[in-house]
Each structure stands twice: as C-alpha cells, then as structure tokens.
C-alpha cells in the first residue's frame, strides 16, 4: 500500500491541478456505474426508433450540494453571483446564499444547490473532469426503485413520485441523501429537486422538420410536434415538459444537478 500511495497521488494529480487528490478520492466513491441498457424512453429517439441505447456511464450518487458548489465558486470566481456573466445566468443565480462566497447557514451546506443555470452546472462538472448526465441516462436511472431496475409499471410507485411533483416547493429543501439508494445505488432522483441534463434542449424535438408545410412554421417544427410515449408515466412527462421549457441561463429555486461521465472501459 505504501508503494501504491505515491502512484495514486500521481494519478490524481494528472486529472487536473485544480482538483485536490482528496477530492478525487472522495469523488470516486460518490459515483456508481449504470448501464449499458436498451431502454424504452418516454421521449423516444425518433418516430421509428422507440428504444434508446444508453452506453455504460457513471453517475453521482447524490445531487451536488451548496457546500460543494461554494468550493467550486471559490476556485472559479467567474461563477460568483456578483461576477457571473448575464449570458450564462439570470438574476436569481445563487440568490439563496448569504453572500457571493458565503452560505446562509450550516443547514444549507448539505442541501442540494439550486438557483443555478445550465451553464454553471456544466462548468462545475467540467471542472471535475465530468459532464452533466444526458436525459436518457437520467431517465434510465430514475426508473429504478430500491430493488428493481425498471419499476415504471408499478402504479403505487408512480403515484408516490407524482405526489411530490404536484407539490415540490413546500418547505425548505431536505439535505441530500434523504432517500435510500436505488437499484443502481443512486439517491434523491425523485422527491428532492429537478435536475439539469446536458441535452435539455433536445427534449420535445420529436417530429421531422423536413415535412413542414408553411415556411413560417419552420422555427417551431421541433418544439411544436412532440412525440411522447407512456402517457401513464405522468411524472416523467412532467419532467420532460419542465426541462424543455427552460433556457440555459434560467435558474429556479428547485432546479439543481448532479454530474456523470462516460464509464472507463475495463479491459478483460
């Protein structure tokens, strides 16, 4: 082990000078592997392809907290709320913090970070050598309960999730880790916050814009014609609709994120 340690430190240092080795070590434990899977999505890839292929990937067990995002903001001051560019975040960006580099209290530290834009979430994940999860990755992982990979046909499960969706903003946010790990070991996918995905602006772009009639309809060709499946899976459809209504600089008080990355292929 003594011999291994310098090697491990070296390896960690190679990922990026700004990431302390301890953070890398901690991060390793905080992601789990999901997939590969072929998955019947509520928002299928196209009119003809009803199944989405999800390659093996790693996903954060927990949403990113205020404390974690504060650390990022201190290392990347261009993401402070008093310095962030108007192109990348609206005026409510991190509005719940006490100051641009101070949280309101210790309780907030463990709450998932919200009030942040797609650009900010994207930059956080990139600084970690990761990326935002894609919609199909998120949807696949969120279809699981504690013991089954796909529990979407379970009406009670659907109702439980829907109860939260119908009243998501009541009271202060709970700390992350509120829910037990699901089948994949991922927590808090439902019932805590909405989450950004990398391809939020690809959702509801369903039908084919080559078949539009009038020229003035072209701008709306993608967004206007949605093709959704599983109408009974109302909770997921609500999430698709919410995400597709966003612009990348928008922030809301219950929209946060977690990071993902392509799984490292292990050679046999």
């Amino acid at each position, binding site marked *: 082990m003594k011999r291994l340690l310098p090697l491990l430190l070296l390896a960690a240092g190679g990922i990026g000078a700004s990431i302390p080795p301890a953070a890398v070590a901690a991060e390793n434990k905080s992601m789990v592997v999901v997939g590969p899977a072929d998955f019947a999505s509520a928002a299928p890839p196209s009119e003809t392809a009803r199944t989405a292929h999800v390659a093996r990937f790693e996903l954060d067990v927990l949403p990113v907290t205020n404390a974690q995002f504060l650390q990022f903001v201190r290392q990347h001051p261009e993401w402070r709320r008093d310095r962030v*560019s108007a*192109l990348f975040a609206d005026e409510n960006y991190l509005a719940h913090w006490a100051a641009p580099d101070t949280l309101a209290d210790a309780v907030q530290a463990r709450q998932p970070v919200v009030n942040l834009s797609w650009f900010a979430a994207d930059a956080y994940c990139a600084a970690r050598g990761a990326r935002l999860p894609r919609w199909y990755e998120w949807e696949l992982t969120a279809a699981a309960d504690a013991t089954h990979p796909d529990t979407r046909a379970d009406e009670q499960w659907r109702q439980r999730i829907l109860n939260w969706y119908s009243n998501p903003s009541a009271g202060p946010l709970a700390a992350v880790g509120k829910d037990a790990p699901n089948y994949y070991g991922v927590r808090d996918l439902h019932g805590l916050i909405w989450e950004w995905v990398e391809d939020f602006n690809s959702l509801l772009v369903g039908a084919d814009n080559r078949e539009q009639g009038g*020229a003035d309809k072209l701008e709306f060709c993608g967004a206007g014609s949605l093709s959704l499946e599983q109408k009974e899976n109302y909770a997921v459809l609500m999430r698709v609709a919410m995400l597709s209504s966003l612009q990348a600089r928008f922030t809301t008080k219950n929209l946060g994120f977690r990071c993902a990355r392509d799984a490292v292929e292990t050679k046999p």
Partner: protein
Amino acid sequence: MKTKCTLRLMLVCCLIVFQTVATPANLDSHSLYQLELDLTDQDGTVSGLDVFKGQPVLIAMFYSSCPYACPLTIQTLQKTEAALDPRTRGQLRVLLVSLDSEQDTPDKLAELARHQKVDTARWKLARTDAAGVRKLAAVLGIRFKRLPDGEFNHSTSINLLDRDGVQIMSSGRVGETDPALLEKIKRVSG
C-alpha cells in the same frame, strides 16, 4: 538588428491584441463572444466565435446533409443580403455553424459553400466540437436532436449579433425576408 527589433515589436503588439480579445472583462456581459469554442471554417481556418467581431453578424445553425430546412435557411440569408443596400451589405457578415460535429468536415462545408454559391469573402461555414455545438445552441435558444439515422431535428432561426456579439434579434421567418430583421440590420450597421 533593426528587423529583429521590428519583429519583436510586432510580437508584443500581437500579444497585446491577443490579450485584449481574450479578456472577457472587455466584453458586454450579454456578448456571445464570451463563449469559448473553436470554429473551423470551410478553408480549414481555425478561429473563435468572435471571428467577425467588430462587424454585424447573422448567425444560424445548420448541417450540410440537411435536405430541406438548411438550404432554405441559406437561401433566406442570401435573400436578406440581397434586400440590403450595398454599404450595409458590405458590413454584414454571415456565420453558419454546423450542428453535426461528426460529419461536417471543412471539405464538406467547402462543397456546400460552392453548391449554394455563398460569398466566402463575407460568409463562413464552420464546424465546432459537440460541446461547442451544445453551448452555441444554448445561447441562441436553438433546440436540436440527433436522430438515430444521423439526421437532426432542430429549430431554425436567423440571429443578428451587433458589433460586440450581443444578440439583437432572433428571426424565425425562414423562406422569405423578415422586414423587422432588415430594419435591425440597418440600425446596427449605421
């Protein structure tokens, strides 16, 4: 010796110019030129998104194998240009950025430029990587989706940037010139 000094001076000047361009603090906080992405144009020339900084720019996203909507976008841009007086047209630049970072090589873009008879003195057809596509689409409010067959569904818009890269207008009128867009182009060129 004199040549050396001149060269050194030029190098210093270049560095100063480069720094001025690279510092986001000098840009309007709404300027799209804050986006860090590499464009490669139809000639293989690499630049930033701010390649036309200082000129009014029409920017749209497309992909070269797109059968209908994208040629229509290019034709709309050409009609828009044609409707301008020569002085305004001379100032305007056109930047078409591909959604298809995998397929659209400089060669393909050059072929399309020839086929559509675009004026490459003032137009650029360019590609960037997948992350660049996502970010540019995000700031322009363009929604897009790669289909399993390699085609894209996407919303179509023609966007006007002022000389500092600030988005002045987004027009969804495709197939015909948009009078409101012509008016705005004249204003930012004035």
